[in-house]
């Protein structure tokens, strides 16, 4: 073997080794548990010093990372390949960091609102974040609108809700928000309120994963609304609450039979409230 051939052969061997290692490497990266992919972000108070003059960019990049992570996970849920629950705590941390870097970033508030309420039920955290955002995005009616919804639907604090809806109305000039301040402020109207909110959110949504999320929840709430209407019709004619959902189906009051898009089964609680075994979430059935 001459000395000029040897480095060439070594180079070919190294290329082959590279190809060989790429297969397990790519497989490893692909099948890496999803939780790991969200990664760890330092506290905003120290992190901001590293961002130099690129705070808005880094904020956007962090939010993009969370949205991509969530989108990937949602796809897997639909494909039923993974039943893993997203790392909501991690998502929330990153969004908080991102909003500290750029308190104007609408994507952060919007996305936090979409999962902090329905999925994680951290209404206080969600509202605190919204109120933080209102200090900066003073022109934006979405934030008080979200806060109003959270107060009325989840927290049942109708006084606060009316206050925020009013502010949303003032900023948007839309009659709907003023009327929301007065309407639906009672228990019976909750499902309609949620349907109105989800319809609006789903319409304005660009991100397919998030949109799909809203649409599924909207579908579930429409089913709940159908059951509630059948239940009320039953009560109106019989003077008492139906004991089971099957009674309503049997009587032909609700057809076709309601289907929970989350894969659970609807049932009636003793007080007549409509519930589902999925608890309105994928993987809700333990």
């Amino acid at each position: 073997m001459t000395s000029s051939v040897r480095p060439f052969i070594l180079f070919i061997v190294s290329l082959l080794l590279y190809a060989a290692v790429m297969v397990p490497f790519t497989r490893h990266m692909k099948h890496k548990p999803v939780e790991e992919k969200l990664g760890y972000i330092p506290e905003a108070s120290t992190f901001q010093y590293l961002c130099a003059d690129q705070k808005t960019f880094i904020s956007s990049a962090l939010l993009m990372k969370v949205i991509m992570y969530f989108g990937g996970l949602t796809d897997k849920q639909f494909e039923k390949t993974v039943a893993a629950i997203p790392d909501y705590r991690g998502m929330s941390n990153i969004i908080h960091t991102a909003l500290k870097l750029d308190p104007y970033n609408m994507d952060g508030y919007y996305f936090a609102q979409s999962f902090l309420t329905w999925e994680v039920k951290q209404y206080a955290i969600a509202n605190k974040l919204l109120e933080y955002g209102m200090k900066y995005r003073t022109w934006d009616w979405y934030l008080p609108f979200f806060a109003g919804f959270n107060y009325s639907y989840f927290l049942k604090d109708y006084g606060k809700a009316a206050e925020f809806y009013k502010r949303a109305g003032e900023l948007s000039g839309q009659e709907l928000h003023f009327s929301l301040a007065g309407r639906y402020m009672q228990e019976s109207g909750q499902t309609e309120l949620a349907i109105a909110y989800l319809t609006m959110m789903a319409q304005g949504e660009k991100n397919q994963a998030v949109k799909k999320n809203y649409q599924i929840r909207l579908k579930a709430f429409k089913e709940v609304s159908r059951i509630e209407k059948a239940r009320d019709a039953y009560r109106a004619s019989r003077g008492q609450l139906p004991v089971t959902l099957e009674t309503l189906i049997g009587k032909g009051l609700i057809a076709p039979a309601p289907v929970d898009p989350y894969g659970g089964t609807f049932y009636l609680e003793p007080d007549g409230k409509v519930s589902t075994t999925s608890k309105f979430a994928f993987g809700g059935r333990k």
Partner: protein
Amino acid sequence: MKDVLLITLKGIFRDRIFQGIMALAGLIVFIPSAASLSMRQVTELSITLSLSTISFIMLLLSVFLGATSMWKDIERRYTFSVVSLPISRTSYVFGKFFGIALFLVLTAFVLGCAAMISIKVSSMGYPPARPVEWGLIMAAIVFDAFKYILLVGVAMLLSAVSTSFFLPVFGTVSIFLVGTITQQVYDYLHTPASEKVVSAIVKNAALVLYYLLPNLQSFDLKVYAIYSIKPSLGGVLTTFCYGGIYTAVLLLASSLLFGRREMK
């Protein structure tokens, strides 16, 4: 000075660093598609990405051109032939500086136009919640350019005294990083929380540095441009004056130091 300026400008255009860095500018073409990933603020994201790209490119240009321009002249012994011409050392330093500064202005102009086309494309597909303030976007780019021109001044000062390439490059990068946070440190030092943690000596030392080092944060108008928020005119004008005077001080110090430098 004009002659050195033109020669410097010509040198930058024929330099490989410039060509490599400008390849980065091709990224601007992809901004509209990248920005469409946003949920609610596509136009805002496209402005963010555009301004960030421009800022980053100008940072690279100012550090590499600012720190290597004079160093290269000394290292390659061009100074013997140039400084011995009938031009003063001050004209040499100023010519170098204004050559690079003019180049940054041209870069900002070209990239700014490209970015505005990108933003326009994004905003046509997804109209923003608030109308795009083109004036603010231009102001943000102008002030960004101004900030990096000041940074070139820092690089010139360091190259005027340094014999190696490391001090100007790493010194400029460090001063850039520190310059973007001095205001935050200053604000922190004036909170009650800091009084318990920070000793008086450290606080005073930090305050000296605050007045000594450039404050680059005030040149950052990106947030205003992205979210169409009006900055205070007074603040912008003060920043403009601050930048001009700080740069002048840097340049005069550079030319004084370079004037005393021995071309051995």
